[in-house]
């Protein structure tokens, strides 16, 4: 293992170029009209992190409201039940559509994937920019719907409530429609990029696993998102013209809406988690200094997760009035998802086994991910089992489960990836100590907040309820305190990262000794990514020492 240093190519052995993608052109206009995938990735990053901040504030409000059954703080009722419904809806809609779905693919994927492929840009740079502006338009529409009456349907917009309630539901669905097209454009771009823009020597099985994950995600984005578009268009028409497709009073079927919605939204769960897994597949070999164990198995498991995600959506409809036959089929198929997930899990552990593990901040997030995703994934099996799900449906158990997968999985991986590629994106190193402290606090706060909710849910606390019985108060209070710890950890992490921006460029080209191509260019990269067309000489994750020439 003492040979590892020799496998770090280009670590500061070249002078830093004076012009990079950040300072080559100046002014706000050069950013707004850029077609450089790196700049678009950075703009996406700023956007999704702002959405994360807003959604996080709403989450803290939700938790604060539930601190006591009377919802009072210092003798005053914090928010009314009506407002509470709006707040949790906005939390869900913002986090899902504005933050998590674009977070890893559109922000980090945009920046890193072409670099990993040794390409100069994504396949369709202008489409990439269009996708970003659609995201901005969708975000503006979502904000407008908040101002003009808000939405209280939950992020799932279930009929018949969503077609009868007041508020700006139509505007919100149109916002999500637009965001869907933003996501489709990203997906089209990435599939075409992976197919056609790989550098010489990079075959399909020479691609880093991050690219495999993003590629699988892009397939889902292309094939599932259009159905969301048509579903929301129908919902809007139902609200405006009462066309009666989902309205049983007019001969329609509300369960049809749930089929339509989850045909997108279940694969969308994999749009969220696959990129998270993809990041972990980068972090673990890099910080274990070891070849990826079972590279092909992990690559195939990404694609098979993407395909499986399309045939399990009915497990969201177990108590919605779906037929028993369909319930049984969907429940059985749901268990299949455990196979590729397990393959990934064991391969990550196999990679770490006897590796030379260094616990830098990204690796701490990767280990957090392994622990949290294991809990999130295994509780998913409870929920996929028909008989237990009937009892656990719409309780805090479900809330805890998907927060373990979405936040404990994707968001933790996203923050880990952000730390990992931060030196490449900004050219600056953050303070390692504070990064690690942040990671620990986030991990503790997360478990305080959401582990509690498994107990709440199994005791029967329904989700989305404003009122609750006094007996749940201790657990609710503990969860609320946990949300403050979590908030503190995230705040510390954000402060640490932002503080590094004040420094001059100080990051080496390859601070972690990574083997993928993005570490071969300078930090931050030049506008066209590489001085010369890079050629892949070694397979990714090849940490074997260089053969010594005799």
């Amino acid at each position, binding site marked *: 293992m003492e040979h590892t240093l020799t496998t770090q190519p280009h670590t500061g052995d070249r002078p830093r170029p004076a012009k990079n993608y950040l300072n080559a052109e100046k002014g706000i206009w050069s950013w707004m009209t850029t077609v450089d995938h790196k700049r678009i990735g950075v703009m996406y990053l700023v956007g999704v992190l702002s959405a994360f901040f807003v959604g996080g504030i709403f989450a803290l409000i939700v938790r604060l409201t539930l601190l006591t059954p009377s919802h009072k703080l210092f003798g005053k009722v914090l928010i009314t039940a009506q407002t509470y419904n709006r707040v949790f809806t906005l939390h869900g809609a913002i986090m899902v559509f504005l933050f998590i779905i674009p977070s890893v693919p559109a922000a980090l994927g945009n920046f890193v994937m072409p670099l990993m492929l040794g390409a100069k840009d994504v396949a369709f740079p202008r489409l990439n920019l269009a996708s970003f502006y659609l995201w901005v338009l969708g975000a503006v529409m979502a904000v407008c719907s908040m101002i003009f009456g808000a939405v209280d349907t939950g992020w799932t917009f279930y009929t018949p409530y969503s077609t009868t309630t007041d508020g700006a539901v139509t505007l919100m669905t149109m916002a999500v429609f637009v965001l869907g097209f933003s996501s489709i454009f990203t997906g089209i771009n990435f599939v075409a990029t992976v*197919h056609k823009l790989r550098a010489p020597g990079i075959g399909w099985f020479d691609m880093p696993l991050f690219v495999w994950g993003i590629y699988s995600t892009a*397939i889902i984005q292309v*094939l*599932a998102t259009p*159905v969301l578009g048509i579903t929301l268009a129908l919902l809007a028409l139902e609200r405006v013209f009462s066309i009666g497709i989902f309205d049983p009073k007019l001969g329609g079927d509300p*369960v*049809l809406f749930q*089929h339509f919605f989850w*045909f997108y939204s279940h694969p969308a769960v994999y749009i969220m988690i696959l990129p998270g897994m993809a990041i972990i597949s980068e972090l673990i070999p890099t910080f274990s200094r070891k070849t990826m164990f079972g590279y092909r198995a992990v690559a195939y498991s990404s694609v098979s997760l993407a395909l499986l995600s*399309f*045939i399990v*959506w*009915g497990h969201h*409809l177990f108590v919605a*009035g*779906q*037929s*028993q*036959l*369909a319930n049984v*089929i*969907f429940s059985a198929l749901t268990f299949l998802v455990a196979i590729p997930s397990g393959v990934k899990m064991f391969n990550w552990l196999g990679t770490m086994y006897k590796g030379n593990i260094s616990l830098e901040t990204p690796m701490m997030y990767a280990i957090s991910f392994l622990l949290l995703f294991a809990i999130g994934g295994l509780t998913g099996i409870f929920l996929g089992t028909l008989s237990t799900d009937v009892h656990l449906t719409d309780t805090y158990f479900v809330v805890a489960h998907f927060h373990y997968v979405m936040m404990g999985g994707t968001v933790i991986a996203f923050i880990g990836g952000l730390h990992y590629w931060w030196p490449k994106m900004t050219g600056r190193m953050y303070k390692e100590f504070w990064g690690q402290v942040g990671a620990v606090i986030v991990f503790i706060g997360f478990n305080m907040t959401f582990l509690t909710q498994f107990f709440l849910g199994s005791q029967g606390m329904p989700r989305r309820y404003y009122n609750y019985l006094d007996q749940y108060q201790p657990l609710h209070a503990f969860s609320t305190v946990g949300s403050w710890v979590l908030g503190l950890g995230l705040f510390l992490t954000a402060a640490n990262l932002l503080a590094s921006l004040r420094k001059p460029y100080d990051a080496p080209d390859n601070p972690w000794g990574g083997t993928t191509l993005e570490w071969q260019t300078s930090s931050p990269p030049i506008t066209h990514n590489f001085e010369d067309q890079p050629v892949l000489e070694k397979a990714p994750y090849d940490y074997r020492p260089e053969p010594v020439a005799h």
Partner: protein
Amino acid sequence: MSTDQIIQHEETDADHEPHSSGVYVKTLIALLILTAITVGASYIDFGAGNVVIALFIATIKATIVALFFMHLRYDKPVNAVIACAGFLFLGIFLMFCFIDFGSRDGLRPVNWNGKMPVETAAPAPAPGAAAPANK
């Protein structure tokens, strides 16, 4: 290898892609004939077979359009794979929705006897007959 390969590739393209309008004229004629057949068949009563015949002919027509007008026959296979994937996942969507809708037993009341509840309930507006489904 690069330049040679590309030049060679252009040659193979030139071999395959139709450079005369003959293929397209034939394609159009075939499509028009199929349209005439499908319209004609709709005037004959095959029972449930009508929908099957109509969709079968439509699929033939769609395949012809995809193969010749959209050049899939001459194109790189990846494009055909993408096109098939679209229809494949649509098929998955359709299949599972039909499994649900086809096996639901709650669309009508379980004991619905084929008569109109309104008609059966009408002659007996007695206080106890509030719910015909309870019978």
